[in-house]
């Protein structure tokens, strides 16, 4: 009963009135962030990190707050998918396929409540899975040496590039941009500046928060200027909200299956929530067959991707906590949060700082329950939030981003750099180059290089050392397969197009 005592420790840390208050605030804020079109979980968490940091919260409180925001944003993403046919973030795309038709049939309230319950089931089961799986994976991770870690980081970039992008070269280029940025700054072993071009501001390197906020939040404003804020008005009216018990009961197996599929997809490093909701939807669609009516607004089509998406969000925490390798864009941002709090994820986290890990897990469970209780009766309030016009929302988000970064360092240089990353983000997204590998590269570049250097020092410069253990070879094979296989599977795994009116 190791888990129960650990869980008791976690709840002991996370279940004080103050942290509960933070959890409620975080869930509320997160749901709003997720619901607003153009402000997904990654943006939301990214903007809030610098502010949380300057607030001077201790590690546990900050973690509780931000994980609540994270889960809340995953919940909130479905609201705009269902009502506006605009996914708040990428994983919510699959929810539009059946959610929006259901809303057009006048069952918007049912779809919202059903998807809320499905999110709860997915996230709850995934958190249980995380508790069971993470400690044993952490034990395996102790076997990892520098060669294995190098291969593992490579695997993350390869699968992320393979799955999340339509063009392998572009995904790899994005990873290189991030890794290249990570090499800028004072070198750890020689103590001499590298690749700074003599600029004093760059001696400390480029702060990943500056890059994240720039690429995710500032880039967004250019897209809104381009579209003149179109598509932010309300699409479908929401009438009375009641709990559709019959629908919930009839989709129970769908939710369970989708949670399993999503959780496994989330564990794969680099694959993340988008793949989870996609696989969950597609597998349920094929189980239901042609008679299932997927795509026309059936409850199962709403429940499956939401359960899968939220289960994957939980699953993505497994590699992030045990190995320090995030499984999705948002977990990459959460990794950034841990790093700002001076917590290094990895196998030692479980043995050295159990209160952080189990406090985090307990706060996930708390956030889940709070979200379910909050979402069913208060869904109307969140729908109101969707009516905030883009011409107030976007300038506001931009100013919050500026204040956040400014309060970190107080330097104009970081602000200018952030604007630069915003412009870069606009062009990258326009050219269909994924931005998540850039973030991952900046976050993991230092560790990846360290692993390589230690491997080279241990082996006295013999490159074959990188392939010297079965685990390392297995990871290399998985990395190459993860990068190459999607090229051939692309025809098979074609994403269904969102319906248009």
């Amino acid at each position: 009963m190791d888990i129960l005592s650990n869980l008791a420790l976690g709840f002991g840390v996370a279940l004080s009135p103050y942290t509960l208050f933070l959890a409620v605030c975080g869930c509320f804020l997160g749901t709003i962030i997720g619901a607003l079109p153009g402000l997904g979980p990654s943006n939301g968490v990214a903007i809030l990190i610098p502010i949380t940091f300057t607030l001077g919260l201790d590690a546990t409180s900050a973690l509780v707050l931000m994980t609540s925001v994270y889960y809340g944003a995953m919940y909130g993403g479905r609201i705009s998918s269902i009502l506006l046919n605009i996914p708040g973030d990428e994983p919510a795309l699959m929810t539009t396929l059946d959610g929006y038709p259901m809303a057009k049939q006048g069952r918007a309230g049912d779809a919202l409540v059903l998807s809320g319950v499905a999110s709860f089931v997915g996230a709850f089961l995934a958190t249980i899975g995380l508790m069971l799986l993470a400690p044993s994976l952490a034990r395996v991770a102790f076997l990892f040496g520098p060669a294995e870690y190098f291969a593992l980081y490579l695997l993350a970039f390869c699968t992320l590039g393979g799955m999340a992008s339509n063009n392998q070269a572009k995904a790899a280029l994005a990873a290189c941009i991030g890794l290249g940025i990570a090499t800028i700054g004072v070198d750890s072993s020689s103590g001499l500046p590298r690749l700074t071009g003599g600029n004093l501001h760059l001696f400390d390197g480029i702060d990943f928060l500056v890059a994240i906020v720039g690429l995710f939040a500032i880039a967004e404003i250019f897209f809104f200027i381009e579209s003149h804020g179109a598509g932010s008005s309300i699409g479908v009216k929401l009438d009375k909200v009641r709990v559709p018990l019959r629908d919930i009961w009839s989709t129970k197996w769908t939710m369970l299956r989708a949670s399993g599929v999503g959780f496994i997809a989330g564990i794969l490093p680099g694959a993340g929530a988008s793949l989870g909701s996609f696989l969950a939807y597609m597998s349920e669609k094929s189980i239901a067959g042609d008679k299932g009516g997927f795509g026309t607004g059936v409850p199962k089509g709403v429940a499956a991707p939401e359960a899968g998406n939220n289960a994957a969000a939980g699953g993505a925490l497994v590699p992030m906590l045990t190995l320090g390798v995030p499984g999705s864009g948002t977990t990459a941002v959460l990794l950034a949060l841990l790093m700002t709090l001076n917590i290094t994820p990895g196998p030692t986290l479980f043995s050295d700082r159990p209160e952080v890990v189990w406090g985090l897990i307990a706060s996930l469970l708390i956030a889940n329950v709070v979200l379910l209780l909050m979402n069913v009766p208060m869904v109307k309030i969140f729908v109101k939030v969707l009516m905030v016009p883009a011409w107030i929302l976007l300038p506001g988000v931009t100013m919050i981003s500026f204040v956040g970064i400014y309060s970190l360092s107080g330097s104009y240089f970081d602000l200018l750099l952030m604007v630069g990353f915003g412009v870069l983000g606009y062009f990258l997204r326009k050219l269909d180059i994924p931005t998540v590998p850039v973030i991952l590269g900046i976050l993991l570049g230092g560790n990846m290089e360290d692993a390589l250097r230690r491997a080279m020092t241990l082996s006295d410069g013999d490159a074959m050392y990188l392939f010297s253990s079965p685990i390392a070879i297995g990871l290399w094979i998985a990395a190459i397969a993860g990068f190459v296989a999607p090229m051939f599977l692309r025809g098979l795994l074609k994403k269904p197009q969102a319906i248009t009116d």
Partner: protein
Amino acid sequence: MAADRIFGLVALITAVAYLAAATQIQTNMFSGEFLPKLFPYMIGTVAAICALFMVFKPDPDPEWPVKGTWVNMALAVLVLAVYAVMLTPLGFILPTIFAAGILSYQISPRLVPAALSGLGLSLGLFVLFKYALGLGNIVAYRVPTPAKLWDAISILIPFVGH
């Protein structure tokens, strides 16, 4: 087609420049001759190969915005850059009114709502940050000397600023 080729070319030049800079990395006896350069070499090489792929196997062009929108976006970048350097010498409220107001106008070109949202956001966010969240280094306003103002603006002018 063209967009990918241009971006690929820019990326290629950057990768080659990065590799060239990597050969110049200073080393000393603590780090060894080769280790600080190894990882940058690897990244630069992979990036150059990927850039070549983009040049020779480009994807179809995305839908680019029309000419007027480009002007708008360039203006937005300028506003954000000026805002970034003005935040220190002028304090929070005045620059934010202008920056938020202009951005709001660019998304939805109506003068009065834009001005109101600039004013509202500036004051609202200031109260939120200063009093609700207690962020220390946000100052309501400062009266700068002309020299300080010029110092801040000159950052944005190439070869003049520092």
